[in-house]
């Protein structure tokens, strides 16, 4: 059972504090903050103990979400509960930040009051909670013309267009009034996280994909919804369906509310989404990538003059020509003694800098179209360079975002709300692949 729950800003300000059992003093907030800031990098911070009191915390949105307890509970339960609390806060406040928590503290207290009683978790389902939550969320977004233009675009949207601006889903689910409130929207997101290791010879050494289908629902009430996935989707290694093995996942798990009676034959998920965000399906694919890895790197590292390393990187994006990778950033560790760097980049929108703190150079490319190839030359000055220092260059790590793209090939064929749905509702399907960890050895 939980004794206290509190939310702290990264600077240690008390944003929310609720004591459920009166068995711990209020001082424990400060004790916690002192402990967590005193930890060195290699000590695990998740569970900390002070006298007979355990603190379990998660970091989300730059905040500390902490539960304290005197018993020895399941860590999975507490961690998942804190994550759920953060997710609900995000649902209700629109976004997750110190500011939004500060502005909506009354609402969060109200949430906590219904979610936990005497340290026992009561409910975290939006369907139940929405009956009890009365406070209106204060949106922390400033009113701006830019937002308005977004809304205007929306109004004139075409049903075919399947791209919704990413800000559209970050608003409070409960706002019953206001200009956006009337919108009956439902977002179905297919999100994949890619972790890849490519060896120095360009061979794929490891590839994992963790994916999920997430629904964010703004409809006040929603009857059954049918989500159709690719019919040729294969699950598991042994089972093959159809002639192509193009779409395959190793394993998938579903939210307990999902009805699967049509899944085996038609690959249809049936679900009654409740308001807010929920994950209906999680899947993973290991040790195999059904398409080419999105980026290939051709590096060359040479010693130039006495004290200079030349790093020449040629990066190719192997996505289909119509798609684009966004916010690509490439980190290359450089020798510890590096002092300065000059670079030659192929276009002005790219940037590159030497980060003295982490001894790495960071090359950023805001947009990278599929099929394109970019190259860059970095000259790094390293006083006292030895040939062994060249070994310190690498491995290269990349982070990026691939909108409208899934690496497993999982697609949503259709999204059908049951015919009894009243009023116009808009349905959006969005795909995105994030790089969880993309490492290329040199």
């Amino acid at each position: 059972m939980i004794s206290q729950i509190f939310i702290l800003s990264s600077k240690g300000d008390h944003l929310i504090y609720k004591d459920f059992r009166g068995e711990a003093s209020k001082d424990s907030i400060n004790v916690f903050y002192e402990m967590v800031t005193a930890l060195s990098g290699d000590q695990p911070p998740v569970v900390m103990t002070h006298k007979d009191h355990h603190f379990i915390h998660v970091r989300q949105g730059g905040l500390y979400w902490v539960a304290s307890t005197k018993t020895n509970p399941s860590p999975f339960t507490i961690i998942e509960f804190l994550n759920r609390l953060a997710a609900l806060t995000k649902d209700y406040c629109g976004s997750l930040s110190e500011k939004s928590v500060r502005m909506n503290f009354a609402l969060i207290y109200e949430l906590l009051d219904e979610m936990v009683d005497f340290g026992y978790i009561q409910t975290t389902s939006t369907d139940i909670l929405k009956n009890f939550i009365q406070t209106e969320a204060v949106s922390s977004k400033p009113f701006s013309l830019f937002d308005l233009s977004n809304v205007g675009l929306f109004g004139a949207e075409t049903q075919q267009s399947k791209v919704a601006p990413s800000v559209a889903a970050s608003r409070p689910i409960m706002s019953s009034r206001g200009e956006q409130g009337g919108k009956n929207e439902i977002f179905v997101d297919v999100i994949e996280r890619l972790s890849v290791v490519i060896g120095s010879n360009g061979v794929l050494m490891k590839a994992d994909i963790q994916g999920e289908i997430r629904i964010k629902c703004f409809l006040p009430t929603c009857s059954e919804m049918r989500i159709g996935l690719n019919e040729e989707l294969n699950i598991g290694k042994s089972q093959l369906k159809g002639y192509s093995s193009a779409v395959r996942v190793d394993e998938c798990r579903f939210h307990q509310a999902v009805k699967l009676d049509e899944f085996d034959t038609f690959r249809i998920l049936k679900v009654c989404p409740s308001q807010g965000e929920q994950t209906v399906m999680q899947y993973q694919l290991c040790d195999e990538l059904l398409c080419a890895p999105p980026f290939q790197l051709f590096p060359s590292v040479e010693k130039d003059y006495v004290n200079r390393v030349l790093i020449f990187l040629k990066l190719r994006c192997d996505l289909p020509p119509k798609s684009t990778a966004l916010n690509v950033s490439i980190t290359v560790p450089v020798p510890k003694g590096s002092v300065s760097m000059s670079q030659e980049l192929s276009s002005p929108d790219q940037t590159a800098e030497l980060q003295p703190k982490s001894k790495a150079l960071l090359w950023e490319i805001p947009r990278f179209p599929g099929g394109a190839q970019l190259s860059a030359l970095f000259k790094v000055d390293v006083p006292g360079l030895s040939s062994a220092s060249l070994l310190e260059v690498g491995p290269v790590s990349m982070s990026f975002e691939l909108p409208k793209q899934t690496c497993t090939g999982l697609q949503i064929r259709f999204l059908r709300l049951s015919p009894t749905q009243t009023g116009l509702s808009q349905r959006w399907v969005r795909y995105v692949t994030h790089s969880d960890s993309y490492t290329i050895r040199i």
Partner: protein
Amino acid sequence: MPYFGSEETVKELKRALANPHVQADRLRYKNYITKVIRYMTQGLDVSALFMDMVKASATVDIVQKKLVYLYMCTYASDKPDLALLAINTLRKDCADPNPMVRGLALRNMCNFRMPGMPEYIEQPIVAGLRDKASYVRRVAVLGCAKLHNLQPYTDMDGSIVNELYALLRDPDPVVVVNCLRALEEILKDEGGVVINKPIAHHLLNRMKDLDSWAQSEVLTFLLRYRPRSDDELFDILSLLDAFLQSAHAHVSVSTLRLFLHLAAAHPAVQADALLHTSAPLLATCGSASRELRFAGLCHVQQVMRSQPGLFGTHYKRFFCGYSEPSYIKFRKMEILVELVNDENVALVLEELRSYCTDVSPELAQAAIAAIGRIARTYSEKCLDILTGLLALKQDHITSAVIQTFRDLVWFCPQSTAAVCQTVEACVDNPQDSEGKQALLWLLGEHGEQISSAPYVVEGYIDGLKTELSSAVKMELLSASVKMFLCRPAETQDMLGRLLHYCIEEESNMCVRDRALLYYRLLQRGVEETRKAVTGPKSDPSMSVLTGRQEEPISLWASAFNTLGPLSGRDLCLQTVIISASAQPSSSAEEELLPGSKDVTLSCPNDTEEEISLSLGPPLSHETFEKMWLDLEILHRQTLGFPRPKAAADTLQAALQLVKIQTLAFTPGDTVPWKAYLYTRGTGTLILAELLQEDPEAPGTEGSLVVSVKQQPANQHTIRGFVAIIKSVFQTLNFDRL
């Protein structure tokens, strides 16, 4: 956090709340109340406003009501007399037609933690238990627990307990779970809520209606239930089978724990359950939430203690992502080291090699140490990598590599030649004291194989004045003396200088004493010194300790899915001591006796009082090894008889009977025979080594020698422990005769 001008703020708020104009304007009034709560959260003492807030509770606005209740619950214990004023409003609300208002009022009224409350809340709680709205019943059920917490042992308890047991059949799932929780608290002194067969089966049948939180809690309660027969057991397991693969990690892990517990007598079922849960566990290891990832990794480590092969094919899942925090990377490296086998060793080493140049020196050193661990099995490949790392000429890397070499040579004597060659070729020396000590040890111990050794040592002796660490100086002394024994001509002069400096000019007493000791020793002659200084150069039998053995599942299953696996060694030790002192003093002798009554097992030494030993939570091999190396030998005794010829498992079982855990022992009749034991008694942890030298060797008489280490030290317990060991072996020998 005291704020500047806090008194002013409180006064100002008080004025505003009392202002009739503000009170008339509902929005403004509410705004001020919100402000009060905001200050309260920030840590400002606003209890002076209690009176005004009580007034504000009489409103129809539910949001305002909730805020005021929150305020009142916080300060009720400070202002009990004023809080009583609010009770009238609350009791009135408890009879409101709106169930939400009823529940809210009841919940908050029960949250007032002050004396005198019970008499006001008893009646509303009892009424609440029979309310037709489930929301109110949920609140009322937990209200019983709160009531008990405020005023334990009232005559009310009996009737409430009966009512709560009846409510376990409530149609609302949350009420059911709340009943379990409340009963658990009320009946804490009697061992908590009783889970008998009807209740257990009722709960199992309701599992599907519960939400995930309630599911994992019910699963934890079911740990208490013992099925009557195997048929019943398998019925239960098949009911729960689906939950092993739940989408919620906490449910699948709780189910696994229950499986392991219930199927303790069916290892095949346990193994099957572990196999089924490996997928959800691996999924948590790749979860988006890094805290969940960490919890998953820690539990994977637990599972691997018994089933090292379970995750073997998934080793790539434990490769580190570059953006992961180091505490996760450390865990992943620990797991990778365990998963190495002939097929994946090349890939794992390549992966670890890429961590060695990480920006964080701690991480780089840990990666090097990990390669060193793998080197105990695959020395050749690892030595290549480690040698390559020396070329980087980074201080922290060189130091870590040298330390790894030292440990490697100690564990695997066959790699000595290669290591010595590398050390000889390595031109720059480590700069930190840990690394220097390791290098000096290597030079001293294997000086005859490293031709440049005397010159390196000479360099250190020349720089002695600037050396700050006394540990390095001590190591330098030992290394020089050892080197003198094997290469006297090159070393004599510098050893003289060193001893002269350390005896005449050194201010640190320990170093000075050590120098004097060596000086006197050398005066006795070279042979005498050689006898005293040189010892074994390696200890392959230590690999008995470090080698992985599959542990029984029961060793870790009890701590599975608790905070134990997540917190480091510190918490572990803490709980050890708590559990050891909380252990009722059961006599070890009494428990030993069943079956062999004709043998007296009381301590042979009559001055000893009986001590009580306990097993406590299990100690991992790593922890034992680390502690064994850290601690000093407190007691060494020749037992005066040889090791019993009984089979190893008989010995292990006999020791287990007297609550002594056997961690590892050399198999069969290998000579020298060693065994490592540990136990806990009177708040201390005892580690022991049993050693039997070759019986044919002169001067040993083939008798067992026991060496005891302890933390914290307590001579009395050691004597008791040795006495118990003695009696066990006597019994076993006696049986043989």
